């Protein structure tokens, strides 16, 4: 339901567009930066999709990104993160013991996106927080985004 907190045991996905991927094909911290006018970082709540396996979740989320965004670049990636791990890492290691919040925020536009969610409290010091989150990115939990 809109406004629900995402449980620590659950997982989120983030679409990493090519401009935030390095020449070596690795995700860069800039993928976790907010735009100037953004308050929350867009992610998707995987368990909300109701799939029976991790593989199905990846297929479903890839389908969604390819329908929702004007263009998903050839080098774009999807990274999967555990909510509790991100929360704990940032809480313990950020300079001001930042308490990130993960909220379910389903969207209807441009297409229905019932698993859409957002991470809040990334500012101030978004760059440091992004670098901390990047340390949790696992290449084994990173997938091509383009269909």
């Amino acid at each position: 339901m809109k406004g629900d907190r995402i449980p620590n045991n659950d997982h989120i996905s983030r679409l990493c567009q090519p401009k935030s991927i390095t020449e070596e094909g690795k995700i860069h911290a800039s993928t976790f930066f907010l735009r100037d006018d953004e308050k929350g970082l867009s992610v998707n709540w995987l368990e909300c999709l109701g799939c029976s396996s991790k593989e199905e979740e990846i297929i479903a989320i890839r389908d969604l990104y390819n329908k929702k965004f004007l263009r998903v670049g050839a080098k774009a990636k999807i990274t999967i993160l555990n909510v509790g791990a991100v929360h704990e890492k940032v809480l313990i290691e950020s300079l001001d013991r930042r308490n990130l919040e993960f909220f379910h925020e389903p969207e209807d536009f441009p297409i229905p996106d019932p698993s859409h969610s957002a991470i809040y409290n990334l500012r101030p010091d978004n760059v440091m927080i992004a670098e901390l989150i990047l340390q949790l990115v696992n290449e084994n939990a990173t997938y091509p985004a383009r269909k």
Partner: protein
Amino acid sequence: MPEVVLKEPNRRFNVKRKDSVSYGDKDLLDTFPSEQSYLSWDQRIPLPQFRKGIFFLVTPAINPESREVSKSSWLEKEESFTQTNLLESEEDQVKKMILRIRTSLSIPYRQRLSNRLLALFNDAKEEEPTSPGISIGSLRNFYNFLQLHTNLKYPSISLSPDCNIYVSWSSDQNQVFSVYFLSDRDAVFVVLKPNEKHPDRQIRVSGTITTDILMEKVAPYGIWDWISE
């Protein structure tokens, strides 16, 4: 009644002219041959020849109406300055800056860097055709930083969602130094490095600073040892 003294007419096109031209607070001696008209900078300085195959994605024109050009040196019809004009203008500046980087002898990896910036520019335009590709202010800030520090190793480079430049150097010893180049002279930096006395802990420093003194301020963290050549 005081005598009125008329200034001599401008003798720009007079062969014997020895006037100097003043711009702002500096005096520049104009020694340009008076018989010739002034040339634009690109006519006087030969442009370097670039490798073929460099291309920029073209921004779809919202209003592709061609400009009206008069036979005289003045436009007969002045068009209003639209957001499309602004975007095109910023895009042009970005392209020029990338080409400038490509020919900057002080940047040892100029070719690779300009190729990378070009790829990022095209990635950003592909993702969002109405974006400027790369923020010109951020790119200029990055270029000035590179001009100040010519012995830096080649970094990992990406763009933020707002198309600002983000670069990182990392070492095998779990050290990271990242710089986020903002549109003015400022940059946000992050230093992550192991705490030698407490191996289970990490030293984490971040801040916002003008790029001209950035390296001086992070020097105490031993950055130079592993990000320079």
